[in-house]
């Protein structure tokens, strides 16, 4: 079954070729070749995935594949293979990563056409795809962690891709470090799991868990630590602050990494380890609460943003909050379904936003846009579809997945509950901000930047946009058969008004958006104190800055010369002082020595005389 091995191998090879050639020759590869390698490797991986799905999985909901490439290490009970595990969950992720990844690669060939770092860009992007594939294919948590950190690194590299601007570097570092904080919690969780269950193989862990009682504190702790990792990677509360800043990277990167794939790794992790979470009520509630809170907080922040990409970034945080909410109420397949549809429509939205940005010569302020509907109609339609999906208008893909989540939330707590309410409120807010964005950019008066708008789409960009639009619209029909992984979910039948509210909430949000943006002065809400507070992302950045970053950097700077070294230099100085004290007597004067000798004798004899 080496086909599986080739799926991550191909992007890796692409990366190696792209990164190695400049090391050995001074001439860069021709851009066409770079694009062929970069896009081709991911495209081939996508084809292999499709082939795999067609031959092994189609019509077989229980299909599973295991492949051990080699023994990674085996030290005294800690045995790990470099091995892959394929089931429907993995396959969904594989398809999303390779499929959406391929489309975004293709789009990038157009978007990044004139960039000096073309080759570097595709090298990073290929490495990212490889790491992401390893993450989802891993059959043990350490290999998963390898992919996990690998995607983090690529995210760092791509956020800081335009390295000349220090702000980009700061955003990239922030992204890496904040996620690393979560990762550290996660790796401690791995140690805990290993200490308790003597294995880190996911399959073995899950079978070991079957003997553990529910709500065992060790399980709860391990689950919470893994949640820490997931929260960091998926930009959930309280580690969400990095994602809005991460928009400093090129827009296709935001689409691929910070919307479609990497940020959903946390969702994947929890879904993959769902037996662990399911064992602990506390962990489940924690996941649900984190999701619900993030959903609302990020949604509110998205309401008042002025940067087109930041709106989408907060929207991503909010949507992943939905997925966490779903995980927290045990709707595993719902979460993964939403992950998939979200990948489609959010990638679409980002790519469309990229077209807008490129068309407006790198203008990102939505208040300087407006009325672009007629100038770039294709982009507009793509954006419209994306917004409709995001707002979960009926019969779009977002509708199916979000609906399932809300129903599960209702079911899980057997009736009305705060989590469900948060979900519904979130739907309302989502409708509001998504259409606020659409109205501000494409409707209304022409903004200052709109006048010199051009249609920047070329073939390489149109094709992915179109395909993603189709996927976003029809993705709701592609609900993957995940029962073999998660077990069959009992279909609840909530009252009709519950379903009605779920459908009506986004529509209400759209109406509010229309009222706020087209009927009233759009900028008014942003001026209020609450608006500014939301604009700053609920002040989390400032809070962390004062509580953590400032004290740390101040402490570090204060101690730059190493206070411990003072101990030793102090010892040295003290002995030098002492030496100075004593060496005064050693003045080189022979007569002085004689006199001292005489005085000494006198004193000594005085002792004799007196005693």
């Amino acid at each position, binding site marked *: 079954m080496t086909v599986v091995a080739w799926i991550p191998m191909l992007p890796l090879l692409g990366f190696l070729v792209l990164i190695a050639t400049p090391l050995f020759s001074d001439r860069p590869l021709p851009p066409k070749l770079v694009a062929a390698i970069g896009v081709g490797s991911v495209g081939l991986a996508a084809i292999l995935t499709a082939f795999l799905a067609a031959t092994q999985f189609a019509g077989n909901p229980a299909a599973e594949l295991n492949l051990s490439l080699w023994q990674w290490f085996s030290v005294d009970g800690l045995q790990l293979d470099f091995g892959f595990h394929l089931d429907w969950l993995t396959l969904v992720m594989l398809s999303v990563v390779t499929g959406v990844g391929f489309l975004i690669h293709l789009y990038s060939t157009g978007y990044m056409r004139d960039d000096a770092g073309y080759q570097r860009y595709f090298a990073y992007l290929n490495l990212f795809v490889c790491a992401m594939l390893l993450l989802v294919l891993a059959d043990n948590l350490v290999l998963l962690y390898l992919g996990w950190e690998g995607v983090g690194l690529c995210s760092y590299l791509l956020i800081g891709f335009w390295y000349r601007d220090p702000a980009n570097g700061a955003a990239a570092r922030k992204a890496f470090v904040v996620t690393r904080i979560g990762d550290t919690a996660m790796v401690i969780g791995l140690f805990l799991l290993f200490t308790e269950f003597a294995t880190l193989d996911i399959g073995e862990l899950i079978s070991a868990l079957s003997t553990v009682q529910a709500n065992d504190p060790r399980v709860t702790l391990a689950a919470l630590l893994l949640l820490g990792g997931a929260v960091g990677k998926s930009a959930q509360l309280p580690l969400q602050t990095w994602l809005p800043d991460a928009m400093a990277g090129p827009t296709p990167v935001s689409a691929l990494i910070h919307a479609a794939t990497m940020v959903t790794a946390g969702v994947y992790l929890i879904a993959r380890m769902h037996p662990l979470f399911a064992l602990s009520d506390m962990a489940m509630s924690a996941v649900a609460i984190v999701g619900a809170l993030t959903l609302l907080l990020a949604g509110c922040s998205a309401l008042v943003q002025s940067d087109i990409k930041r709106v989408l970034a907060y929207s991503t945080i909010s949507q992943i909050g939905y997925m966490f909410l779903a995980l927290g109420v045990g709707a595993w397949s719902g979460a993964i379904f939403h992950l998939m549809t979200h990948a489609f429509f959010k990638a679409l939205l980002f790519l469309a936003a990229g077209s807008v940005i490129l068309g407006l010569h790198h203008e990102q302020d939505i208040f300087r846009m407006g009325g672009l509907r007629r100038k770039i109609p294709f982009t507009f339609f793509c954006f419209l579809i994306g917004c409709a999906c995001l707002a979960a208008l009926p019969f779009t893909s977002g509708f199916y997945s979000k609906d399932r989540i809300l129903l599960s939330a209702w079911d899980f707590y057997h009736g009305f509950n705060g989590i469900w309410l948060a979900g519904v409120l979130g739907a309302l807010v989502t409708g509001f901000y998504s259409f606020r964005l659409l109205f501000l950019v494409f409707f209304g008066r022409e903004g200052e930047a709109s006048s010199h708008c051009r249609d920047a789409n070329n073939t390489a960009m149109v094709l992915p946009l179109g395909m993603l639009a189709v996927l976003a619209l029809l993705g709701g029909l592609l609900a993957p058969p995940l029962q073999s992984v998660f077990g069959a979910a009992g279909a609840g039948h909530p009252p009709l008004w519950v379903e009605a509210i779920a459908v009506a909430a986004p529509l209400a949000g759209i109406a509010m958006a229309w009222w706020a943006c087209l009927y009233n002065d759009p900028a008014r809400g942003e001026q209020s104190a609450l608006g500014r507070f939301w604009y700053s992302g609920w002040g989390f950045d400032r809070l962390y800055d004062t509580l953590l970053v400032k004290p740390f950097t101040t402490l570090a700077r204060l101690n730059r010369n190493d206070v411990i070294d003072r101990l030793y230099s102090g010892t040295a100085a003290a002995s030098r002082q002492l030496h100075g004290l004593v060496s005064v007597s050693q003045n080189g004067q022979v007569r002085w020595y004689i006199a001292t000798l*005489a005085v000494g004798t*006198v004193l000594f*004899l005085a002792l*004799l*005389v007196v005693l």
Partner: protein
Amino acid sequence: MGTISFYLTATVAILSTAMVIFNRNAVHALLYLVVSLLAVAVIFYQYGAPFAAALEVIVYAGAIMVLMVFVIMILNQGAAAVEQESRWLQPRSWTGPAILSAVLLVQLVVLLGSDGAITAGTPGTIGPREVGIALFSQYVLAVELASMLLLAGLVGAFHLARQRHADSGEVEGAD
């Protein structure tokens, strides 16, 4: 008679020694030193040590002092040196040492006097014969060592005093 001559010689010794340390002219001081040594030689004789007295005169007052005379002559200490000495010999430069020495002297004398209960010895003359026997029986090893010391002194003095052409004020390694 013996007592008087002892005190007379002792006075001569002390006075001439005092003249050595207060004199400004090196040659004069040296002559006073010779006088002092001769006086001490007389005291040796009075204490029944004629051999020591003879050695004192021959070796000390004779050989060693001649050596010093030669060096003073080489150094050519003339009137300028006398001038310099009188500049150096200010009262304030010798009050301290004088007090120090006086205190030491008092202490020594007190200590000598405190041992009043020294058992009476059997004083008597000790001639060269006894000394020679003691030297070459009991102390033969010490004699050998002393001879080596003299040899070392000889070689060392030769080496140190040699006038080297490379001498230019800087420290140089041994040859």
